[in-house]
């Protein structure tokens, strides 16, 4: 007989599956029940994770999941591991589900897919996060993107078909290539080694470093539904990050002898410059949160691959998590303005609030993304820019170019305050005073909550590590 603590990992994995079964049983027009149920399961999942994290932090050993069943001659063995790396991924996916279900209310009465698929995706992600081998995780993750195509296909955007086609062919091709390369024996020549490493890393980079690696970025950003986009992006990037972590183990000890850290930095820098240039020419408040998300996450691979030390992994996770939380906050605020018009009579108030909402994304040190960003950058700089390092100049060049891109993005973000978006919100609806007040309080509280969360995240991530 299991106690709760022993079974908690099973519960964490299976809660999304149970949730998706229950939600799909509810008739599709009963939105209230579906929302309530999804909120309940999201909260339950997160609570279970907190218990697991606590147990992990105080050092008690959790059982790995393993069970097998056979059907005729077909034998399936199911193994899930929990270690100091993937516990954060379980946590992040449950946190994303929680935030998504509370912040973005979906009101589609035609089908259940919009409510069910986040949970189903989370379940698949949970299964993959328990794997140690990229050869098992990658096919599963690759198949899970089909559900994202369904999600995009069920939205009412005009060019959703082309977005699905571009993204689908690209991701599928890259995944297949990586799987083929993984079967090859490793070459001893340096150049082949680098090429193979890049091939293995490509699926992760394609999901995480969206702009430099994926030609489908702009089409995707413009064609996802406003309420589902945040989850899709958060999921894609989380999966990409996990693939990178697994690939880092796969490439192994040769990592530092090769120039892979430098290449990662170069790619990240290119990606950031790309995003910054796109956003400075096209600073619509609608797409800017997406651009900023991609901008900061393109730094993630270079931080992760900077060294084989564990510290860099924690910095990466902290950066990713902060980024996602601020992104959710910004998109939610934008949605509120878009769907309900301005809750403020004075335009200046709305602009000030939009500035407050964007401020965590500005990379100001000590607030929002800056809490994780600057320590990560400084730690990276100490690793590579010291006098003895042979490639010092290149590293400093990449960092300074990244810096330039960073300033450009800040300019683009601040320029949206002057944009005309607030005057031409056509979808303004008649809303009651009580609801207006609710929105206003959200406008003030949510940036504060995002800032406080960004301060808490590093503490939470470093907590088990310290004990």
């Amino acid at each position: 007989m299991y106690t709760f603590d022993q079974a908690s990992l099973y519960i964490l994995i299976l809660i999304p599956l149970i949730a998706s079964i229950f939600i799909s049983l509810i008739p599709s027009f009963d939105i209230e029940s579906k929302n309530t149920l999804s909120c309940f399961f999201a909260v339950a999942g997160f609570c279970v994770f907190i218990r697991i994290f606590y147990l992990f932090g105080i050092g008690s050993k959790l059982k790995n999941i393993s069970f097998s069943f056979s059907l005729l001659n077909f034998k399936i063995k199911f193994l899930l591991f929990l270690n100091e790396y993937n516990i954060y991924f379980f946590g992040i996916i449950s946190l994303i589900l929680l935030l998504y279900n509370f912040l973005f209310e979906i009101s589609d009465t035609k089908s259940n897919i919009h409510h069910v698929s986040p949970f189903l995706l989370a379940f698949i992600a949970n299964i993959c996060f328990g794997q140690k081998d990229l050869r098992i995780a990658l096919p599963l993750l690759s198949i899970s993107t089909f559900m994202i195509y369904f999600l995009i296909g069920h939205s009412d955007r005009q060019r959703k078909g082309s977005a699905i086609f571009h993204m689908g062919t690209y991701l599928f091709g890259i995944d297949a290539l990586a799987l083929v390369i993984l079967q090859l024996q490793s070459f001893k020549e340096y150049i082949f080694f680098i090429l193979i490493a890049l091939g293995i890393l490509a699926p992760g980079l394609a999901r995480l470093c969206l702009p430099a690696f994926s030609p489908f970025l702009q089409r995707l950003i413009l064609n996802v539904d406003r309420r589902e986009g945040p989850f899709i992006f958060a999921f894609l990037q989380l999966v990409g990050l996990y693939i990178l972590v697994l690939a880092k183990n796969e490439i192994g000890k040769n990592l530092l002898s090769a120039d892979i850290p430098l290449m990662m930095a170069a790619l990240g820098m290119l990606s950031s410059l790309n995003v910054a240039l796109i956003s400075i020419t096209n600073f619509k408040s609608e797409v800017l949160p997406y651009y900023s998300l991609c901008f900061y996450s393109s730094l993630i691979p270079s931080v992760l691959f900077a060294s084989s030390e564990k510290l860099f992994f924690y910095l990466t996770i902290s950066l990713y998590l902060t980024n996602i939380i601020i992104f959710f906050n910004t998109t939610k605020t934008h949605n509120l303005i878009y769907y309900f018009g301005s809750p403020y009579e004075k335009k200046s108030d709305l602009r000030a609030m939009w500035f407050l909402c964007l401020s965590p994304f500005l990379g100001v040190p000590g607030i929002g993304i800056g809490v994780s960003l600057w320590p990560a950058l400084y730690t990276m700089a100490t690793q590579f820019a010291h006098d003895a390092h042979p490639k010092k100049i290149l590293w400093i060049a990449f960092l300074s170019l990244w810096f330039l891109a960073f300033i450009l993005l800040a300019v683009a973000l601040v320029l949206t305050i002057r944009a005309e978006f607030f005057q031409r919100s056509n979808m303004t609806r008649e809303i009651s005073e009580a609801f207006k007040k609710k929105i206003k309080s959200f406008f003030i509280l949510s940036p504060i909550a995002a800032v406080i969360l960004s301060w808490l995240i590093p503490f939470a991530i470093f907590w088990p590590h310290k004990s």
Partner: protein
Amino acid sequence: MDQLILLFVIFLSLIIVLILTSAFRASNKAIIIVSFLSLGLAVINIVLLMQKTLIKGEAIYQILEFSRINIRPGILIDGHFSVIILFLLIGLSLDFFQNRKKDNNIIRISVVQTIILLIISVASDYFILISIFSVGTLISTFLFLKNYSDIVSDWQCTKDFLLQRICDAFLLASFALLYMKYDTMDAKELAEFSNDISMFPRIMLFSALSFRLLTASFISELIFTHSKFIFFCVLVIALRLQWLLFQQDILDDIFFSISFAFSLITLFLLLIFRNKQRPPGMFYYFFSNIFFVLLGNYKILSSMILCGMIAFSSLFFFRSKKKEQIKIFPIYYSIQQIPLRGIYLFGEIFSKFIGFFYTNILFFRAPQLIFGIVQLPLRFFHNGSISRSFLFVVLTLSAYVYYWTT
């Protein structure tokens, strides 16, 4: 530990003023009395603190270590700190006295800024210091956007904010240079290495600070509390950096040149925008120059005072003239246009990024002036313009002083 208690009382009294001014109108007499009482309490406390730290020399330095990354929140209370806070509190009382019947917002903003400055001046770690500084600029921009969009346009507010972001990035990068080498950003710990620190980071830091002051002095004139805030922040940072900036004798000349260059830039900017009123920013810039001098470099003193004189007098002088008379280089204007075409093209591209105001300075006015300076000696001989002769005299004098002191 008495110092910490005194500090806490100051903090508490400021919070009380903040709450009172945000909850009630400041024209209410009871509110005025209570606010003044708490401000008075703060002043008494700071005088006591001054007595302890400045006269008896009992500085406090405490540090908290909690993570593997070398960013350590620490508290450092010394003599400089209490003097700054005393001035700040006096400034705040004046603000309160001036605006008590007109405007609650300005009082609230300056109280918020004072609280932020109080926290900045006790932080010992540079990373935390700059973090709070940036958060402060963010909060005050938000408050200005919210309360003063009738007077100050959104465009002006955001433009200033963007410029500050660039300055902050510059300052952070120069600190990064130190951090890479010594793996710490704590003021006390860096002081131990101060003899080993090479020239480049020192110069970077000094020019970053000068740049910060320069931009602060040209922040839109209506947001005068903002430039005061930035001025005091830079003052705190420079005080913490004093041992790092002015220790080697070799550096004196370099710093002198940097300050001189910045003063000249200020002067030129003043000439360009002579029709606009920018006294508050100029005032703070002038005082900040004197402050740099007080930090220990007497060679800068001469240049600073001269440049200040030039700036103020020319400001006064040019404002009284008509627009046609004060065109400095009218004859060569058309010849100048030819090599400037390319620069103008870049200017037009850049005006999309950084706005027309700063592009104007960078690509339109500055090249014009530089070309003008080349022609300067020629122009002095055959023109009876009193302003130009005045400029000539002052420039030759300052050049002579420079030659004489070196």
